[in-house]
């Protein structure tokens, strides 16, 4: 589903964010991306969404080489991906419903279809009663769940999360990780960047570890490793 082939990224500032990264995630797989801050996790995710393009190598998503997409195809490519951020990236001048509906509006879905999907997504994250509220009036955990609802409302094939639990307490973090696993169970390919090694280790999933832009570990955790 996602394949990195000898990918390097050097920013215009001369900073090498990623060097010679190669790995592959299968359809329906769930994996964690770990490493210290500055190790290149966010850059790797931004390469998958094509918000950045690699300096060298190829990123292939759903059989398409992202280097060869036209501007319009890039937009269409992003419609099959959902992204969750640590800082949520919500629009504070719109209510919860409008925030979650944005991926559907961009794709031109009908109003009734949009309403149905948005309600279903908000129901999934337990915020059905708060669709008319502004994100600013919600707690951090609720804002994060609005962000998740927006990331999954259009039923993406791929779900990416960049430090989704960075600002949340352990209990909330576990809930959020549980949500991601539920999406994975219905066939969504999930990649979560997190430096919360304890939580990552408890989940018995593949772990990809970056250090200073290099891939230093890519291992499957055995299923019999108990939750921590």
């Amino acid at each position, binding site marked *: *589903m996602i394949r990195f082939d000898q990918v390097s990224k050097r920013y215009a500032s001369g900073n090498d964010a990623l060097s010679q990264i190669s790995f592959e995630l299968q*359809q329906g797989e769930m994996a964690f991306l770990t490493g210290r801050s500055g190790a290149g996790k966010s850059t790797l995710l931004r390469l998958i*969404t*094509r*918000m*950045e*393009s690699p300096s060298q190598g190829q990123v292939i998503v*759903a*059989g398409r080489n992202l280097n060869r*997409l036209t*501007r*319009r195809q*890039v*937009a*269409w*490519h*992003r*419609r*099959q991906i959902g*992204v969750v951020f640590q800082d949520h*990236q919500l*629009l504070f001048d719109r209510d919860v419903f409008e925030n979650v509906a*944005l*991926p559907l*509006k*961009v*794709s*031109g*879905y*009908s*109003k009734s*279809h*949009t309403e149905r999907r948005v309600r279903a997504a908000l129901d999934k994250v337990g915020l059905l009663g708060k669709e008319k509220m502004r994100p600013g009036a919600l707690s951090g955990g609720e804002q994060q769940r609005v962000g998740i609802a*927006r990331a999954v409302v*259009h*039923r*993406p*094939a791929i779900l990416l999360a960049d430090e989704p639990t960075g600002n949340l307490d352990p209990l909330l973090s576990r809930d959020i990780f549980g949500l991601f696993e539920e999406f994975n169970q219905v066939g969504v390919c999930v990649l979560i960047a997190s430096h919360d090694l304890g939580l990552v280790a408890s989940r018995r999933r593949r772990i990809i570890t970056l250090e200073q832009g290099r891939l230093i570990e890519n291992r499957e955790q055995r299923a019999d490793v108990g939750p921590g």
Partner: protein
Amino acid sequence: MSARDRKTASERSRTLPQHSGGGLLSAHLEVLGDSLRRFAAAPLSSAMTIFVIAIALLLPALLGLVADNLAGLGGNFQDSARITLFLTGQTDDGEAVALSEDLRSAADVASVSYTSRSQALAEFQAGSGLGGIVTELGDNPLPASLSVTPSNREPDAVQALVTRLQALPQVESVLVDLLWIQRLDAMQAVVNQLGRILALVLGLAVLFIVGNSIRTGIEQRQREIEVVRLVGGTAGYIARPFLYSGLLLGLFGATLACLLLMALQLAVSGPIDNLLSLYGAEFRIRFFTAVDALSLLAIGSLLGWSGAAISSLTRIYASPP
């Protein structure tokens, strides 16, 4: 491998956009409403932008109206652009009638009317109120005359006709107010040219004003644009609210320009009527019409939309997809 490809294809088809007519229309209406709310949220800066656009549209429109009225005025006087030929004393009635028949058959002459010496005297006595004085003179001092209307009223054609008529032996002198017509013509050309230049310059100014306002809007909404890009908004989708804002700025500016023109017209119509009645002209001033208003609204909207399109699309396409 092939099974995975099939699955991938089905995954992709789930996420294809479903454009339904109703969805698209309501989406556009929503963006329109959003643009209006944004104007209302910043009333002072919106009002100032709209006012500047209105002035930029008002000036060329006003000049165009003045040029049109000058053309109408010129046409009005050219209708009465008659050439009067005063005949020599040696020319008798018979010769004069023969000459008028000759002239009438010429291609560049529309009509000829003959006024004999006695008719001229009678008209003078009736029209001037000085009939008594003329009677006391005993002899009729007035010459016979031919009034010639040229078929072509272009100043050059009239000039050519006058030159030919002056050469006729029966003609003592020729009277024509050609200079006045030429001056009016030249004045109209100046106003027209000025109007065209002003329309060009101020049209560019409207593009610039709208583009600048849109640029500010894009900078303010940078975060939102990032989110829209991330969820798969196309360049067209990202530009859409800015295109509507530009269209509305142009439309509102043009509306204000129309209102200002109508107010101006109301304010000057009294003095202008007074002026025209003093000249005894039948000329009716051409006012700002509904067609003019609609054209101004269309031009304003188009300029606003274009300014927004140039400003937003160049920025969007200059940044990565």
